[in-house]
């Protein structure tokens, strides 16, 4: 990229099982107010445009950006709404600035998972002609994926349970996480079976919250902060839809998305060049699968890397030092939260869950649709 785009501000709510005290708009304003305060920017003077990320069916609001128009500064100004999971807002926000149309863009994603039933909403994402009537949701689809992954690469339930142990342990160090704990592999494996082989603790909990972020062109970013995080590469890709269309253990779309992002960032050897990764672990096994898709290890090799401790906070290549999505992040915020946490690592401002090495390059991965049908990868750098 000839021109550069930087993340100059990040704000996240504390993620909570239920935010009964605020409406979606009020919850969004918490992070918008905070990110503006942090950067010292004024909505009307400094922010050129806004991109929000939410879903109508989750919000119970036809055209869900209606509910946040005022707080995001939409009045008489530009605001666009992306679907998918918030990483797409970073993706499109970066493109908007590179196009020369905007210099400073506010991103915000929000969801209150507590206000509806995730299985019903998920079911509406399955095609209505061949699959929806069977009653599928993301959990049952994920169970089909993990079974295939375990079968194909000989992954054991113990290895997958270790993801939960690691991430909920990391989440203890993250003040915004919704759940955390000192668990053992045996405790994870004795939590109730939901859709075999997935157990309760393998599944990210229902959560309410919002994340806001400000992107700026290089010229603006230098004026706003001394500590910008550069967006070095972006990539996105769709996989096939129907559950039987693809080998569910495959990571075709993620490999393509990562390939684009790495090419743009000049990363030739992700295993050596990437210092920390924040990946979408809304189901525990997905952390392993996506690590492989991101090229952080060979296919089928993520579990061994985890067992060797390489992905712990103190490890060679920490993965999800924030505690990931298993710590509790709302669904349409998944991706923006991944990018935010990766950026905090690059800034060195992740607090107690800051990794113990110098972070020059971080990668964040967001995905949406069941079994990670749409993939989005963002590479961040200190320089």
């Amino acid at each position, binding site marked *: *990229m*000839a*021109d550069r785009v930087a993340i100059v501000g990040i704000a996240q709510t504390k993620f909570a099982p239920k935010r009964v005290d605020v409406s979606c708009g009020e919850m969004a304003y918490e992070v918008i107010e905070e990110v503006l305060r942090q950067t010292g920017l004024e909505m009307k003077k400094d922010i050129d*445009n806004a991109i929000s990320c939410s*879903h*109508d*069916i989750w919000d*119970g*609001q*036809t*055209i*869900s*950006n*209606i*509910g946040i*128009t*005022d707080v995001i500064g*939409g*009045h*008489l*100004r*530009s*605001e*666009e*709404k*992306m*679907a*998918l999971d918030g990483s*797409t807002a970073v993706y*499109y926000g*970066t*493109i*908007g600035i*590179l*196009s*020369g*149309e905007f210099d400073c863009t506010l991103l915000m994603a929000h969801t209150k998972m507590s206000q509806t039933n995730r299985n019903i*909403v*998920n079911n*509406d*994402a399955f*095609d*209505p*002609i061949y699959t929806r009537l069977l009653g599928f949701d993301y959990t049952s689809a994920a169970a089909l994926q993990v079974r295939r992954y375990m079968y194909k690469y000989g992954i054991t339930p113990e290895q997958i349970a270790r993801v939960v142990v690691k991430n909920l342990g990391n989440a203890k160090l993250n003040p915004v996480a919704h759940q955390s704990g000192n668990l053992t592999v045996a405790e994870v494996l004795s939590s109730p079976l939901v859709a075999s082989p997935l157990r309760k603790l393998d599944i990210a909990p229902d959560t309410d919250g919002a994340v806001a972020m400000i992107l700026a062109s290089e010229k603006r970013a230098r004026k706003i902060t001394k500590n910008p995080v550069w967006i070095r590469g972006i*990539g*996105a*890709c*769709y*996989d*096939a*839809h129907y559950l039987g269309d693809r080998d569910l253990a495959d990571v*075709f*779309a993620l490999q*393509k*998305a990562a390939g684009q992002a790495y090419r*743009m960032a000049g990363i030739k050897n992700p295993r050596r060049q990437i210092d920390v990764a924040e990946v979408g672990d809304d189901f525990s096994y997905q952390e392993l699968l996506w690590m492989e898709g991101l090229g952080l290890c060979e296919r089928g090799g993520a579990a061994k890397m985890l067992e060797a401790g390489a992905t712990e906070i103190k490890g060679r290549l920490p993965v999800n030092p924030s505690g990931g999505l298993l710590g509790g992040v709302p669904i349409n915020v998944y991706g923006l939260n991944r990018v935010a946490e990766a950026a905090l690592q690059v800034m060195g401002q992740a607090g107690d869950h800051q990794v113990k090495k110098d972070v020059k390059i971080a990668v964040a991965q967001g995905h*949406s*649709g069941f079994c990670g*049908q*749409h993939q989005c990868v963002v590479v961040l750098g200190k320089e």
Partner: protein
Amino acid sequence: MKRNVAIIGGGQTYHAARRHDVDQAEMVNEAVRRALDDAGTTIDEIDAILLGNMEFFEGVHMTDCWLVHGTGVYGKPGLKITTGGTVGATTVCAGAHHVASGLFDKVLCIGFEKQEEGDTGAILSGVAHPLWGRSLAGAALGYFAMMGSSYMANWGATEEHSAMVAVKARQNARKNPYAHLKLDITIEDALNSRMLSYPIRMLDMCPASNGACAVVLADEKTAKKRCKKPVWIRAMETAHNEQFELDWRFVDTKRLIFSKACAGRLYKKLGVTKPAEYFDVFEVYEPATWAELVWYEDLGLCGPGEGFRLIEKGMTNIDGPIPVNPSGGVLSTNCIGASAMLRIWEAALQIRGDAGGHQVPKDVRRAMTTAYGGTNWTVMTALSKTLND
């Protein structure tokens, strides 16, 4: 924008109330294939694909994920954009940003709606805030009815003026093979159609259509090399109004509102002082007749309160000096996710001189389009024949 962006091709389906013969993917695919053919390209050459659609209208969450085989986005970068009635224009706008960014050379933008599959009434009432107005179910109809009554009360227009807009739209649609409502109606027919919500009658409102539209965007180098008649996107602007203050319907509001703010910014970018002379044709987003008259005023084609005089004098007819909606507009075809993109594509056809039966009988070098959605917002686009226009 850092790179110039051109529309190098486009296509649309034949719009209709019923499309029982196709599923959503098949319908979208019709528009996609027409657009690729028109652009003389293949799906393999497309770098990214953006889809605009409102998930609630068909009751399908993540439509983009389901329709990958119809849109051609399998294995490619893409996004879904969901900004309500404006979504078709926002999708083109996002596509233009993709091209201008230098990361993509050819981008396919798609908008569609298969309204017959969803429950439009139930979903439109969901536009209202769940605790503020949803139980009243006034929806879009009541809103445009108030616009009509306040327009008449403030400016002295009559129901005839609304009927003139209704007739112009449907008579223009008869010249457009793709349009949905091709009605040979008279002013009497419009005035005698069933009253829905005073002063809005059946023929004053847009239909519920099924259909899709797709356009292919490219950078300057590709466009000049590959396309005989590229249409250039010169400026795009978006503006919302605040959530609860829907001032647009009180036509004499003294506040600066979304429509005027957006047009003002777009004109400033291009240095336009007399839009009626600068642009050769307009495609505006008019879900109801009265909205078209208000657009005339908000776009500065005439002074406040003079919109109905334009239609009265036939100024905005297909052969008039300021043609508005020669395609038949939203009043003749409303497939929500495609409607705003159709405005842009129809304007592009006029510039290319390829509009066929509804081509305006003058040299079209510049065109302007509007979109309308949600609780009052718009996306405006200015197009031109050459980069010097």
